[in-house]
């Protein structure tokens, strides 16, 4: 998943970005409304974390103009906690709302929720054969017998890859897509990183978990 964070306070922004990265997300940043809107329109992020009070272009305006063209899930951050502010943000098209100061785990949970909703998946657990992916707890387990499952240890990025493939079950996911949504500009561009990660999850979840379509991408069969 690739997230855009738009927040003008540099310390807060760095804290949010680091939290997201450590949770397995690829993150892009913007420090004002103009840059935020520009990036949001230029690319299909999986979700956007948007602060309301921004210099240059106000957060409300960013949302308004974004919604004319895209349906990217948006999580609003704000220090204003009156009902009118909450209502206004939601009515303008935000998917959810967080009041500062907020708990990090709550931020991550709400983020997952809006992403899940955008994929029209209500149930947090997705099962592929005997492999159960729990998007709420961000864990993967294998069902050995009806009442016994083994939890599989995955790094945040590995989990991110599994989740991405499983959410698009039955659809072809291109290597470029995986690359763009798994890694952000922090990394050197080594496109075989994708292959590395795919082989890692194959090792952990079985070779049949994901199928390769030579030259095109990967797919988790239905």
């Amino acid at each position: 998943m690739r997230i855009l964070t738009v927040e003008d306070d540099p310390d807060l922004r760095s804290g949010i970005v680091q939290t997201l990265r450590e949770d397995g997300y690829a993150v892009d940043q913007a420090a004002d409304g103009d840059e935020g809107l520009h990036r949001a329109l230029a690319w299909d992020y999986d979700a956007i974390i948007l602060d309301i009070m921004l210099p240059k272009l106000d957060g409300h305006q960013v949302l308004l103009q974004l919604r004319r063209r895209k349906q990217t899930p948006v999580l609003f951050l704000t220090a204003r906690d009156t009902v009118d502010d909450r209502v206004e943000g939601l009515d303008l098209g935000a998917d959810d709302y967080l009041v500062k100061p907020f708990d990090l785990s709550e931020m991550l949970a709400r983020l997952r929720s809006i992403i899940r909703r955008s994929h029209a998946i209500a149930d947090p657990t997705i099962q592929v054969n005997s492999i159960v992916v729990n998007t709420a707890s961000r864990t993967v387990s294998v069902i050995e017998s009806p009442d016994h499952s083994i939890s599989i240890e995955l790094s945040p990025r590995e989990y991110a890859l599994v989740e991405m493939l499983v959410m698009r079950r039955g659809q072809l996911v291109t290597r470029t897509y995986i690359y763009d949504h798994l890694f952000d500009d922090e990394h050197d561009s080594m496109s075989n990183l994708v292959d590395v990660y795919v082989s890692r999850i194959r090792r952990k979840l079985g070779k049949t978990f994901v199928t390769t379509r030579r030259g095109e991408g990967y797919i988790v069969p239905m």
Partner: protein
Amino acid sequence: MFRCKSLRLRIQLWHAVVLVLVVIGFSGTTYFLVSQSTLREIDQELETSLKVLQIEVSSLLTIAANADNETPVSSDSVDWDTLRVPQTFAGRRLRYQWEQPYLVVFSASGIILASSAEGFEHQPPATRKSMPKASDTVTFRRDKGWREASQRGPGQTTLVVGRYIGAEQRGLQSLAWTLFAVGGVLLGIGLIGGWLVSKNALRPIQRISDVAERISADRLGDRIDIEQMDDELAGLGRVLNQTFSRLEEAFERQSRFTADASHELRTPLSVMQTHQQLALAKPRTQDEYAETLHVCQRATKRMTQLVESLLCLARSDQSQTTDFQSIDISQVVADTCDRMRVLAAEHRVNLNVRSSNTASPDALCVLGDRGQLCQVFGNVLANAIHHSSSGAQVSVAIAHAANEVVISIEDQGVGIAAEHHGKIFDRFYRVDSDRARTGRGGSGLGLAICRSILVTHRGTIEVRSKPDVGSVFAIRLPLSNQLGPDEQDAIN
């Protein structure tokens, strides 16, 4: 004395009193004049008759035996039957005979010598009662419904002429009743009318108090409708509406301030929360822990500054001017500049102070609080220094104009666009480019504090600026030796 508190009741009482006085006065006067004139008419008739009678009796006595007027006359010698009541009363329509005018002649000893009232059903007082005392002038007397005039006649007789004036009396009585009735009706109409009019006139007051009662903290938008009101009450309504508007504005300012203040505090709190949670999420390196602590430090400093500014604003909002003293402004400016030299050096900015060529040193005394004034100059100077680039010049000039002192702080920094000029003194207002600056946690309160302090000191602050050229902040304060005793009292 019973003091009536109801305006309406008082108006109506006074109205009633005045109306009653008018009605009584008018009818009373009318009745009095009519009755006086009627009586006078009757009396004149009687007097005229008496004159005629005098002449007739005189001639009678002369005819009878040459007697001189001094000898008392006896009835034998005179033919009294020829006496007739004078014709001045002729032509009157009378119901009864005894309502006719009559004459009676008495001898000196009181014997009736002649009387035309002999056949009357009711005897007049002259014949019934004693003979009226006679004098040489006409004397009138009234007895119930009879009016008589008497005079000494020739030969020591007493001549009496009289009439029953019952009809006239009845006429006057009916006039009195008519006046009473009409007056009563008019009084009634007047009172009712006055009651209705005063009720209508005072109804807007009820409406005003209704609106005022409805208006509370969450309904400050209501206003009194003054369209239909009379001028006097519309004036009151307008003033009240203005008061309500000011109240509403004050409330809005207050809640905006609270919202802004809470917003400003929440972001640094959020920074600390995020970084602390992050640091504790899993084992970190020493450097990472150190960095977290630095971040929290920055946020803490920011919040501390903000809290200080807020307290300062709150203090100056409730400022007590009783501690004001006479202060030498040029000294305060000089001290502030000295303090700021370190900061200026850090930013490699040139700071210089120019004083105008004023006469004596105490020409520049203002009444105020030294600490607060230092803060004002400090804030503006700090702004100037921060917004200037390396090597630029910041100048402070003190000038003396009329009855005020003007301190100008000029910088050659980034300047402020015209659209912000009115707003930079508002609380929490920051020009956008300022907000993007990292590490300079300005809260947007500095200039608001300056303005608030200056308002208490009866001074002003304004800005002239052009983007990329620079800005000049001008602070004006009234000189204390120019304040009249009234103004000095007002400040205290």
